[in-house]
């Protein structure tokens, strides 16, 4: 984890209010793992913004992020143009654990802007011969992104809340007993994760959490999550953002 200047080399809008960017540097791109995030400073905002690493190309030294224009910070970031320098800390936190010897089939469940970190994970798993199935949930057709990219990784089901694209409903409606997997990985809104982890309580899984952050490096205790064991609070920025689904209280 270091503070580095990354160069914005590419930016485009890929869905409603959703921006894809590629950032270049010599350090973060060489060590980032799926599930980790970068912590981005924006001029005149007190706090940095955490954004998941959606893909990495080590050779090109490029890292992909995908983010939604949510408030004033992401809106100002969306206005950056290629060539500009982005002040980042990274890679932060711990990624999705996997032990390729112990698994054959995995299920990825992404909700909205929780989809991005699963892409880099899925790519990595597929390259190790793991069978990947993905369920991607969005609010509406205009917000769907990366369907094609996930199709490359394996069977991919898109769900929208309003049924305007793919299946209608929530990701949890889609997961039936016919789904067969050793492990699941998920990232998305807390409501979705809560429903999902309770539905899949007999399965082993890892989920990636969000919380408002101060330092982003584990020093300030802003971003805690309660655990079910004696560890008490864990820090999402430092001990997560990925946690075993059964360990945390959402």
């Amino acid at each position: 984890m270091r503070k580095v200047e990354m160069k914005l080399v590419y930016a485009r809008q890929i869905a409603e209010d959703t921006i894809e960017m590629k950032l270049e540097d010599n350090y973060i791109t060489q060590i980032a793992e799926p599930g980790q995030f970068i912590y981005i400073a924006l001029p005149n905002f007190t706090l940095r913004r955490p954004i998941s690493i959606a893909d990495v190309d080590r050779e090109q030294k490029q890292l992909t992020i995908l983010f939604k224009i949510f408030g004033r910070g992401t809106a100002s970031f969306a206005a950056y143009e290629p060539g500009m320098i982005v002040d980042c800390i990274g890679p932060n936190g711990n990624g999705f654990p996997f032990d390729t010897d112990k698994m054959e089939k995995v299920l990825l469940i992404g909700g909205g802007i929780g989809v991005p970190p699963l892409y880099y994970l899925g790519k990595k798993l597929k390259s190790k011969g793991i069978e990947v199935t993905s369920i991607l949930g969005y609010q509406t057709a205009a917000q769907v992104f990366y369907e094609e990219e996930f199709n490359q990784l394996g069977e991919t089901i898109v769900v929208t809340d309003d049924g305007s694209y793919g299946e209608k409903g929530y990701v949890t409606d889609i997961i039936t007993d016919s789904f067969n997997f050793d492990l699941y990985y998920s990232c998305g809104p807390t409501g979705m994760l809560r429903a999902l982890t309770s539905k899949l309580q007999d399965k082993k899984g890892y989920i990636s959490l969000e919380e408002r952050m101060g330092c982003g490096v584990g020093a300030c205790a802003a971003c805690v999550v309660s655990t079910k064991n004696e560890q008490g609070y864990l820090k999402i920025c430092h001990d997560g953002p990925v946690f075993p689904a059964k360990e945390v209280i959402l």
Partner: protein
Amino acid sequence: MDLQVKLPGLNLKNPVMPASGCFGFGKEYSRFYDLSLLGAVMMKAATGTERLGNPTPRVAETSSGMLNAIGLQNPGVDKIIAEEVPFLAQYDTEIIANIAGSTIEEYKEVAKKFNDAPEVKAFELNISCPNVKEGGIQFGTDPDMAKEVTTIVKRASDKPVYVKLSPNVSNIVAMAKAVEEAGADGLTMINTLTGMQIHLPSRRPLIANKTGGLSGAAIKPIAIRMIYEVREQVNLPIIGMGGIETAEDVLEFLLAGANAVAVGTANFQNPLVMPEIINELPKTLEKYGFSSVHDAIGKAVFV
């Protein structure tokens, strides 16, 4: 350029240290740079036993500042002495323990325990944490209670005690004088101002604790004013804080009467901010015609 500052119990190689609660116990930032560069380290608040703190969200962003309501989450004084102090003691810097509690008894107990830790050079008495409901806020805004807790802690230990003043008061000088009378060796100021942000979509205060402490550049003018007022009327050394981001900010605090400074929120924006400030400081002092840190202290007050 001479950056050294001598204060009760503290030989600072330079006047810059992290503010309590913004630097944990140093481990995380030691991944970014050598902590021996720092004048001192103010540790996160310690209480008698472990505290889990407040529910989340615990922070919110504001214009040129932030709100926090961590709620004194810490592993308790024993674990801090056993596990955190030895880590910091590896570095060539001074260790200051931040002492908190809900009762006078708890303050006393924490002070006694730190008193036996030789690596701890001084105490920062946190009577001003706005996020503890049981008593913290009263200690920090009532001169008599501030006096009482200072007296007890002074009695419980031989280490120099710097009392951390809350800015949420009508009369900061009265607070400073009260703890001076009680035997405080120094002051640290300011802690955060109590604030709130409403989250529009949920129509509720954003911070789960409702209120939080406002820190960052937004509060710098208030910190400078309070330090200046106290320096005019009270003879204790002051470690100043509140919105420091640059070496020029440090000089502003020194001129207003601070003997040393602490940097809090700015660490979150730039984890390297303290080494950068320390590096800039000689040039900045020189630019404005000062030959040492000492030379600048209080220069805007006594003219």
